[in-house]
Structure formats: structure tokens, C-alpha cells
């Protein structure tokens, strides 16, 4: 790990301002992703701003009947919150499908959204990777690409966004709230938070330098059946090959977002009109324009099958 200076910020405004003072600064929350990457010198911040003391660990009801989740709420606490379990079950399910008990006790809401890809070439500093070292090439294209993305990819990068939580937040139409070093605040719909790689896979979100996430709001609950179905290489403590977050209403309408297939949680609102017509028709629309590799083309069939199983489960069938 490279040496770095360290400070404990006291308020969100202080944290953002501190980041502006140190151009090479990073916020540290749970540390579970950042420290892993710092040990490998994939992340090399010169200054760390500890945001654990900002008082952002509350979950509160909003006036609109929704929920405001502080940026520092731990994944375990969010999954266990009574309102989340009752009204936003898909989020609770997605959270407990991720990582381990220990990691969920540490991982925060903001850190989870901003965690970086698990592409093995990104993690191996001996390999080319446009995300880690822009212009060095992409080891995964033409290499080992079984876990990689099948849609939203570019010729520069085919990495997935690894979060489970973010997929559920996408299906719930969450909004990310931030504060900038100049004190201004903004709200970013989760659909707009993550960028597709294009020619610049190292740019992963629309956040500006020093912009601090303060919380995430969920709109008022929409009812329906909440399902999160994650398929992975072992039954626990592994990242998704494919995951499906769904909210299905009794009349067969609903919303679906996918994890493990794209550089961001993948949802196509227009495709959802096809949901009552079944998994095949819907998945064809949802994954239109997919560009799988020979190694990960199986994900297209897998998505369709999981969606079919989720729709059957929503109807009450035993699956």
C-alpha cells in the first residue's frame, strides 16, 4: 500500500471541502472495497477522508411516504430495517444475497454503490486493462470473459458492476443525494449514476471530484411481490453471474432490473410493457442489442430462464 495522510471528517460539508483541498483524496467508509484495491495499488490515494463520523447512519421516513437511507447505513442494518423488510423486500433480499455477514456489517450504502468491478484483469496489475490504466487494452476481450457483461459494453471494456444492492435500488427508482465541495447539493436518479464504458471505462459515475454521497431516497412503496434471484457459482458468498430484481403486481405488470450482465444495473422501462406476455418476449426486448462473448453468451438464456422462474414465483407457483 502507498503511504497516505488521513483525516476524520466531522460533517458532510467538511468532508467534501477536504476532498477539494487534496486533489488525490478518497473518502473511506467501510473500506471493504477501497482497502482491497489499495493493497494491490490499483487505488493509490494520497489522502483518505474517513466519513464514518458524519452522522449519516440514519434511516428515516420521508414526507412522501418513502424512505431516506443515510450514506453510511451498513448493508446489514439496511437489510434488517423493519420498513425495508416490509415495504422494499427486494432491497432486503438483494443485500443479504451479497458478500458475507462480516462484510455486510461493514459495507455502507454509498460504498456499495461505488464499489468497483471484479473483472480479474482489473485486479491483476500485470494485465492490460483500460479501466485501470487507460489505453493499455482490455484483457477480457478475447480472454477469459465468462463473468463479464453482455450488454452496455464497448470495445474498450466489458466489465460488470458487481453490486447486488444497486440492482434492487434501480428497480425501486431510488435517488442518490450528494453534496459538493462548494456546498451545493444535488439529486441523481440511480439510473443516471453509473456510466456506460464507451471510450472512457475509467469514468464510472457522474460524480464530480470531491462530491460526497449523503444518502439515497426511495419513493413510497409500490406494493407487489418483491423477488431477488441471484445465480452464482456457489450458493453463498459469491458475486452474481446473473441476478434478477423484480417487483411484480397481481395483474402481471411489473419492473425488472438485472445484475451481472452490464456495467450498471440493467433496466429498460419500455421493455416492461411486455412483461405480461411472458419471459421470452420480455427478455428479448430487455436484452436487445446484447454483445456477448462466446464465453458468456450463456447469460442470455440464463436471464430468460430466471425471469421465467421469477414470474412463476410471483404468480404463486412453486419453483
Amino acid at each position, binding site marked *: 500500500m502507498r*503511504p*497516505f495522510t488521513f483525516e476524520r471528517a466531522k460533517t458532510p460539508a467538511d468532508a467534501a471541502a477536504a476532498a477539494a483541498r487534496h486533489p488525490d483524496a478518497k473518502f473511506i467508509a467501510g*473500506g471493504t472495497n477501497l482497502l482491497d484495491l489499495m493493497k494491490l495499488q490499483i487505488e493509490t490515494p494520497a489522502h483518505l477522508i*474517513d466519513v*464514518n463520523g458524519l452522522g449519516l447512519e440514519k434511516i428515516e421516513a420521508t414526507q412522501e411516504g418513502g424512505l431516506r437511507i443515510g450514506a453510511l447505513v451498513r448493508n446489514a442494518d439496511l437489510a434488517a430495517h423493519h420498513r425495508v*423488510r416490509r415495504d422494499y423486500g427486494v432491497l432486503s*433480499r438483494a443485500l443479504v444475497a451479497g458478500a*458475507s*455477514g462480516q462484510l455486510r456489517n461493514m459495507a455502507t450504502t454509498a460504498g456499495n454503490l461505488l464499489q468497483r468491478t471484479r473483472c480479474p484483469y482489473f485486479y491483476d496489475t500485470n494485465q492490460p486493462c483500460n479501466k485501470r490504466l487507460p489505453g493499455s487494452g482490455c484483457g477480457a476481450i478475447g480472454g477469459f470473459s465468462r463473468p463479464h457483461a453482455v450488454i452496455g459494453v464497448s470495445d474498450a471494456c466489458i466489465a460488470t458492476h458487481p453490486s447486488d444492492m444497486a440492482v434492487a435500488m434501480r428497480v425501486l427508482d431510488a435517488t442518490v443525494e450528494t453534496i459538493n465541495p462548494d456546498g451545493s447539493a444535488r439529486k441523481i436518479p440511480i439510473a443516471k449514476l453509473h456510466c456506460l464504458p464507451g471510450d472512457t471505462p475509467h469514468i464510472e459515475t457522474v460524480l464530480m471530484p470531491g462530491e460526497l454521497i449523503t444518502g439515497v431516497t426511495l419513493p413510497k412503496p409500490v406494493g407487489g411481490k418483491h423477488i431477488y434471484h441471484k445465480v452464482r457459482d456457489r450458493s453463498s458468498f459469491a458475486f452474481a453471474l446473473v441476478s434478477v430484481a423484480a417487483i411484480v403486481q397481481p395483474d402481471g405488470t411489473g419492473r425488472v432490473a438485472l445484475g451481472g450482465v452490464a456495467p450498471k444495473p440493467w433496466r429498460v422501462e419500455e421493455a416492461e410493457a411486455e412483461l405480461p406476455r411472458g419471459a421470452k418476449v420480455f427478455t428479448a426486448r430487455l436484452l436487445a442489442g446484447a454483445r456477448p462473448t462466446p464465453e458468456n453468451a450463456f447469460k442470455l438464456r440464463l436471464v430468460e430462464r430466471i425471469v421465467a422462474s421469477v414470474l412463476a414465483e410471483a404468480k404463486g407457483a412453486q419453483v
Partner: protein
Amino acid sequence: MHNPENAESPRGATDLTRREFLIAGTATVALTGCMGLGTKSATEMKPQQAAATRVSFHVNGKPCQLELDNRTTLLDALRERLHLTGSKKGCDQGQCGACTVMVGDRRVVSCLTLAVMHEGSLITTIEGLGTPEHLHPMQTAFVKHDGYQCGYCTPGQICSAVAMLREIKAGMPSHVTSDLTAQPKLTADELRERMSGNICRCGAYSNIAEAITEIAGRTA
């Protein structure tokens, strides 16, 4: 298990049979605690000023003040500075659980958190759970059920299991909990899922599960 921790035990490690050695390892003899720390070693290995920070926390009930290179993980601070070598370094990447300790009453992997992030924290390691004379019930159960072979994962398994039972009591759901709004029960599936963050290279899982089940039955 060739750890210097036993060199500091009342009887040297050499006096122990392999079996006793493992039992001692389960409790991981706590002798030095935090006494006499921070002073000598801090001057010996004084880190670069700008890249060092003072931090105070409690480990196993004892207050500690350290000046640490910012890069020091909580695991390295416990092992290298406080000489509490019960917590093990398996992967250093959050993947194995051998470094599991409790911060407050929550289990965490100490390899993926910086020591300087723990100002004011109350940290419990395997050395603080029980002593060789007064083992924690979970330690006794691991001994009774042979919940280990080499013992390397054991301190992490035990810390994790103790905190895991509290999580169930607090009603926290898991991936295999069928009804999100009901109080979860400690079924075999729940136990395996909730302990999946602790890998045992020796594959002592079934005995580990038996040990935890016994204690769960007692505390439920």
C-alpha cells in the same frame, strides 16, 4: 499454529501435547493484552509523521493508545503491535474470515478496515472471549465437537459464530430466511448461510456446525 503466542504462555508450547496445544489455541492465550504497548514499539518503528495517526480504542476491555502508520489494518495492529496473534491472516482480502473480530458486538473482518478508523471502538478478539481457565461456551463447544483440524480458521469461526447468534436474536434476515418479516430460526440452512464468510481449509464444517448448534440451543 506455530505462533509465538504460545511462547508467552505460562507453560512453553513445547510442554503441550498436540491436543492440548489445539485447545490452548482455541482460547488463544491472552497474556500481554494491551499492557506496556505503544511506548517502546512506537518509538522503535516511528512511522513518517504525516503518514501516522494516533488512535485510542479498547481491546478486550483494556484501553490502548497507539500511534500507527495510517496503512496499518486493524488485523495488523492487533497482531503486530498488540501481539494478539489469535486473529489470523488467511487471505488479507475479506474472503476467508480468519481475521474476524468484534467491533462493539458486530463481527467484522479486521483485514479490510484501518486501525486508525477505530477511534473509540470496543474491540473483542478471541483472546477476550474467554481464557484457558474460563473458556467461552462457544470455545468449549468447539473443543467438545472437534470443530477444527489445524485450528487456523478457528478463532475467526468462534468470533463469527458468537456474533452470528446475536444477529439471529436481533431478527436480522439472511439469504435463506423464507419470511422476511418473521423472526429467523437457527436451522441448518440458516447456520451454513450465515457462517459462509468463514472458510475452513480443513473442511471441519460439520463439526463446527454441531458446536454452534449446541450453543444456539442453549442460548435460544
